[in-house]
C-alpha cells in the first residue's frame, strides 16, 4: 500500500479555538477520492482549509504527503492544488493569462498549449481574452476549476465543485476527476451533489457536530439526497 497523501487523526478545526465539528479522522491514498459530506455549516470547508494550510488545526494531527501541513514550503505548494470559492482575479489579466500564470508559475513548459486545452475543455475558449469581471459566475467558477488542473499536483482539494455548474459540465468534471484518480492523483472534495459523490468518491466522511461517520460513496449519496434542499 503506498503512503497516504493525506491523513487526519482526531483533527479538530474551527475558529478562535472553538471546533466546528466532531474530531475528524481519515486517510487518503494516491488514486483515491474522499468526499466530505454533511449539512451546511457542518465544517466541510473548514476541514478543507486546514488541509491546504489556510487554517491552523485546533487539535489532533494532520499530515499531507507524510508531513504536518505547512503551505509555506515549495513542495507543499507544488503538490497540493486547491479550488475554493475565491472569487478574486487580477483586474487586468485575461482568462487565458490567469491560467498561463498558474501553469507557468508551476514550471509547465508548453504552458500556452495546456491553457488552450483547458479553455476548450471547460468551455471558455470563446472567453480566452475576456477579463474575468466580464464573465458570468458560472464561467468564473469554470476558470477556477481549470486553474486547478493547469498545474502539477498529487492532491486535488475541491470545495463544492458542483457550485454554479450545469449538468453537462458537472458530468465532464466527474469524468475528469475519475481520470485524475487513474493517473495516481488523490482527490479530497466537499460536496452536496449525490451524483458527483457517487461517480467520483471511493469513500465519504459525513461530518456532524457530535460524531463523524465514514460511509461508502453510495450510502453518502443516498444520505445527501435525503437532506431537504
Amino acid at each position, binding site marked *: 500500500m503506498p503512503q497516504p497523501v493525506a491523513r487526519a487523526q482526531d483533527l479538530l478545526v474551527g475558529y478562535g479555538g472553538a471546533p466546528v465539528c466532531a474530531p475528524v479522522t481519515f486517510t487518503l491514498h494516491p488514486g483515491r477520492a474522499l468526499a466530505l459530506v454533511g449539512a451546511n455549516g457542518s465544517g466541510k470547508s473548514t476541514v478543507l482549509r486546514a488541509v491546504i494550510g489556510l487554517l491552523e488545526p485546533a487539535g489532533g494531527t494532520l499530515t499531507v504527503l507524510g508531513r504536518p501541513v505547512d503551505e509555506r514550503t515549495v513542495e507543499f505548494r507544488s503538490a497540493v492544488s486547491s479550488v475554493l470559492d475565491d472569487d478574486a482575479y487580477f483586474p*487586468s489579466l485575461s482568462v487565458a493569462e490567469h491560467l498561463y500564470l498558474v501553469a507557468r*508559475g508551476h*514550471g509547465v513548459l508548453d504552458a500556452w498549449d495546456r491553457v488552450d486545452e483547458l479553455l476548450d475543455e471547460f468551455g471558455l475558449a470563446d472567453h480566452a481574452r475576456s477579463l474575468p469581471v466580464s464573465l458570468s459566475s458560472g464561467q468564473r467558477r469554470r476558470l477556477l476549476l481549470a486553474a486547478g*488542473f493547469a498545474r502539477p499536483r498529487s492532491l486535488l482539494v475541491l470545495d463544492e465543485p458542483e457550485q454554479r455548474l450545469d449538468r453537462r459540465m458537472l458530468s465532464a468534471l466527474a469524468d475528469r476527476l475519475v481520470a485524475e484518480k487513474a493517473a495516481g*492523483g488523490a482527490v479530497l472534495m466537499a460536496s452536496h451533489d449525490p451524483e458527483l459523490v457517487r461517480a467520483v468518491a471511493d469513500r465519504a466522511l459525513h461530518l456532524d457536530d457530535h460524531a463523524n461517520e465514514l460511509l461508502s460513496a453510495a450510502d453518502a449519496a443516498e444520505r445527501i439526497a435525503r437532506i431537504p434542499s
Partner: protein
Amino acid sequence: MTDELPHGGPAVLPGDVGDLPEARSIRRFTAAAGRARAGASLSSLLGDVYYAVISAAIGAAVAVGVAGQVRASLPPPPAVPPATSLSLPTLVAVALLAGAGVLVSLAGRLGPVGTGGAESAWWLVLPVDRRGLLRPAARRLPIVGAVAGGAVVALLDGGLLGDSGQRTLLAAAAGVVVAALLVLLATVVQSAGVSRRRVALAGDALLGVSAVLAVVLALGGAHLAQLPVAPWPLLVVGVLLVAALVWLVDGRLDRMPARSLRESGSVATQAMGAVVSLDSRELGRALTAGSARPVRRWVSRFHGVRGAASALVAADVAQLRRSPRHLVQLVVAALIPWLATVVPQLANVPGVLVAVLVAGGIASSAAAEGARAGEMNPILDRMLPLAAKTVRRLRMAVPGVAMLAWALLAFAALGRWAGDVGTWLVLAALGAPVWAAATVRAAYRPGPNWSKPLVSTPFGALPTGVTTVVSRGPDLVVLCLLPTWIALILRHVTPTFLLLQVVGSAIAFAVGSSIATGTLMDRLFEASGGAPGTPGSKPAAAGR
C-alpha cells in the same frame, strides 16, 4: 523552506515540467499585462506624476503655512510657568509618542504585510520563492510610515515650535527612522506568527500610556524648552538598525503564512477603498473588525434586558465594552481639553476651542459603533419590534452616556480654566445630547455621492455630493452647540446660554432621530415635485 518531501514529485502532470520561474518574473508578467490594458501613454504618465508632485508640494506648503500661522499667533511662554503645566515642546513630544502608538496600532491592523484578493488566490499558491512575490508589499508600509513620520515631525518641530533648520532636519530624520523601525518591528512580529490583534493592542496601549504620561508630566510641571532631537551618531545607529530589520524581514518573508497574508491584505484593501471613497465608517469597520477576537471567552447574559428597547441598548453597550481601541480613544479624548488648558501657550480661546472640537470628534466617533453597525446591516435595526425613529433614538443612548462622561471630564477642565467649574459642568451635561445626536446622524449618513457637480477651489476640485454627506453630524455639533461655543469664546456661562443649550439639544435630538437620509435641499426639491433625492441616498434603514 525547500526540504524534500518523502513522496517525490507531483503524481499528476499537465505536461512537461521544467524549472520553476523566478518570483520576479511572475510579478513582471502580471504588471506587464496590467500596463498593456491600462492604455496609459508616456505623456499621461508624466501628467500623473506632475499632478502628484504639484499636489504634494501644495499640500506641504499649506501645512507649513498653517503651522507657521499658528506659531505666530501663539503667545510667548510665561517666564515662570504654573506648577501644573506643560510646555509646548513637551506636549509635542507626548503627541509624537501617541502618534507612534497610532502607527503601531495601524501597522498591526493592516498587516503590515498582506496580499490582496487576487494575489492571495493566484500568487500564493505558486511554488515560487514567496519572498520575491512579497517584497514590494513588505516595503510599502515601512516607506509610507517613514515618510509620514518624517513629515509630521518636521511640521511640528519646524512649523509649530519654530526650531532651527538643522534641528528640524535632525528631528525629521529621527521621525523617519523611528517610524520605519516601528513598522519593521511589527513586520518581524507578524512573521513570528503573533496575531495582528496583539500588535494592534500594543499600539493602543502605547497611545494610552502617552495620555497617562502627559498627565504625569503636567502634574510634575515638566518643561522641555525644545523638542529633544537625536544626535547624528544615534541616527546612524538607527539607520543601521533599519537596514538590519529590512534584511531580517526579507529573510522571513517566506515564513509568512498565507492565512496571515490573506487577512492583512483583505483589511488593507477594505481600508484603502474606504479612504479613496472618503468613507470614515468603512475605514473604522476595516480597522476594527479585522483585529477583533474571533471567539469570546464569555457570553454576556444580558441580565438587565427587559424588552426590545433595553436589548438594543444592551447590545450597543456590549459593542463598546468589547472594543479596547474605542475605550482608549474615549479616555484620550477626555484628556485633550485638559492638556490644552495646562499648556500656557494653548490655554487661550482658540487653543481650547480647537481642543474641545477635536476631542469631541474623537470621543463621539468612539461611541457610535452600534449605530454604525445598524447602518451597515439594516436588518439589525429591523430585528426588534421597534419603530424606526425609536431605534434611532435608542441608538443615541450609549453615545449619550459616553459623551456625558466625556463632557463632564472635559468641561471640568474648561471650568477650571475659566474659573467656574459648576456652571461649566451644567453646560456640559446639557450639551451632551448634541454630541450623541451628531454621532448617530453621522453614523446613518448615506454614502458619498460622486455624481454631483465639482466646485473649483484653490486646493483643487471639491465634490459637493461628498462634502454635504460628510458634513452630516458635524453640522449639528457646529450649530446646536452654538451656545456652548459662544460661552467658551466669552469664557463665561450665563443662564441664557444654559437655556439656549437646552433648546439646541432638543433640536439636535429631533434631527438625530430623523430617519430621512436625503439632505434638506433634496427634501425641499422633492416636496416641490422635483426628481427624487440623491443617488447616494437610500431608503430609511430601520423600522416597521
